[in-house]
């Protein structure tokens, strides 16, 4: 059985988020009023918040996961860690060292059943950037280096999960080869899981979530076809979560969303991070 390892402080899991920071990420995300870089940064900040929430016990945040965030394209032809002075960090360190805190509002139901607005502190770990070209290959290679070391230290852990969010083709070569090398990396519990999210800026674009075949993608879109090939086949636990949300998935569905708007981006991030947390011990 694969993807079955218990995730514990002794056997933590690993999430790496890769974010495209190229200039085109400053364009508005389809169906929203904000840029793709803003929505992507916000979505990943929220996802890290959710992961910390799930790892929080009365005595603090337990290190069930290591986390890495890589940005590519903030500086021309460069990929780098977006965490200050660190690459992979235990999740408790992220909880203790946000870049800044924001005051946000939420609605709570009071004892008399009335909805009241309440403020809470929301952490931000990285800011949106949209600056240069798209050195995705460099980003993937940096992730590969980190994962290589991590797997050597955690051979029995739940396999690493890598989530790549991008809006365009790589400008530093073909990422397919290094993506395949990534997917071939494994722990004793299974192969690395590589998720790809293609952000859209087309207002009425039809998103495709977890497609099963390349033929359903636009025939002339080489980038879509490439990201499909780069993505892992959804393992059963993830497939079940997708089915629970009434998504049409099959045994050959890929961990890929084409032409994603905000809803699809959030769905991909949530499903991509939720299945491993069901193995928390």
């Amino acid at each position, binding site marked *: 059985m694969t993807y079955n390892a218990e995730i514990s402080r*002794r056997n933590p899991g690993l999430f790496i988020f890769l974010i495209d920071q190229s200039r085109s990420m400053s364009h508005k995300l389809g169906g929203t009023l904000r840029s793709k870089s803003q929505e992507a940064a916000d979505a990943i900040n929220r996802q890290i918040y959710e992961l910390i929430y799930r790892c929080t*016990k009365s*005595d*603090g945040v337990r290190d069930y996961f290591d986390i890495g965030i890589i940005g590519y394209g903030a500086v021309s032809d460069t990929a780098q860690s977006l965490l200050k002075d660190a690459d992979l960090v235990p999740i408790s360190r992220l909880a203790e060292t946000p870049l800044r*805190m924001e005051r946000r509002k939420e609605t709570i139901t009071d004892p*008399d059943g009335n909805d009241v607005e309440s403020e*809470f*502190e929301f952490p931000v770990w990285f800011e949106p950037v949209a600056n240069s070209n798209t050195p995705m290959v460099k980003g993937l290679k940096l992730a590969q280096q980190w994962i290589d070391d991590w797997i050597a230290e955690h051979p029995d852990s739940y396999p690493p999960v890598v989530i790549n969010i991008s809006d365009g083709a790589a400008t530093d070569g073909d990422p397919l080869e290094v993506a395949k090398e990534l997917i071939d990396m494994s722990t004793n519990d299974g192969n690395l899981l590589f998720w790809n999210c293609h952000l859209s800026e087309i207002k009425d674009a039809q998103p495709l979530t977890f497609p099963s075949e390349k033929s359903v993608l636009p025939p002339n879109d080489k980038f879509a076809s490439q990201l499909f090939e780069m993505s892992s086949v959804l393992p059963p636990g993830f497939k079940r979560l997708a089915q629970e949300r009434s998504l049409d998935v099959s045994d050959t569905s890929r961990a890929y969303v084409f032409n994603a708007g905000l809803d699809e981006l959030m769905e991909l991030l949530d499903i991509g991070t939720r299945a491993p947390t069901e193995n928390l011990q």
Partner: protein
Amino acid sequence: MSKLGNKESDCEDSFSFRSREMKFAIADGVSASIFSDVWARAITDSTVTGRYNFFENPDNFLNDLIKHAREKWYRKIEWEKLPWFLKNKAVSGSYTTLVGLQFQKSGEGLRYSSFAVGDSVLIHWEGADDYSSYPLTSPEQFDNTPKLVWSGKGHPMPIEFKVTPPKALTYSGILTKNSTIFLATDAVGKWLLEYGRYAEVTRLLNSSFEMTELFTREINSKRMRNDDLTLVSVFLE
């Protein structure tokens, strides 16, 4: 005992008793919420120290019991000093199961009445394969979504917070000299119902070392789920 791999202080189960009133309570704090250990302790303490008559319908006193337990839970947590990640999660409140048990003297032994919310169980063992259990009667009934007792929201909601009490199930019987009542949280309760090792457990009651060894073996062999474990036995001498 705590889940294997955790510290003793991580245990979120609680057990309280008052021998004079012959009242007992166990609770299994839910680990998906935080401060569940504090909540489980508050609820078992309030169950045995409150002036509640378990022979009455629990609908008559659960509201008051939860109100008092909430006050203990709320006051125990230093809300203002919590870092953001604890504060943001603690506002959702804590959850626990509960079994309360009270005895009264009766001609034939001790008459008892019990109420329960969730999947902690009472098992009345009368020797060999003769037992009854409630609120769950077979190992297949244990699942991951039991009914629970909620503390209500945490800060910034005020300490006065109306919580709708869950519906408790009741059970009663007579404890005689040749029988034993076990109160157990879910993992050990399920294991007892599945493998029926009541006699062995009874034999080990005076040796926590041997009991811990037995449970550790059972967890390692996957016959028992790795979880916080609480087992209480009550019998007449």
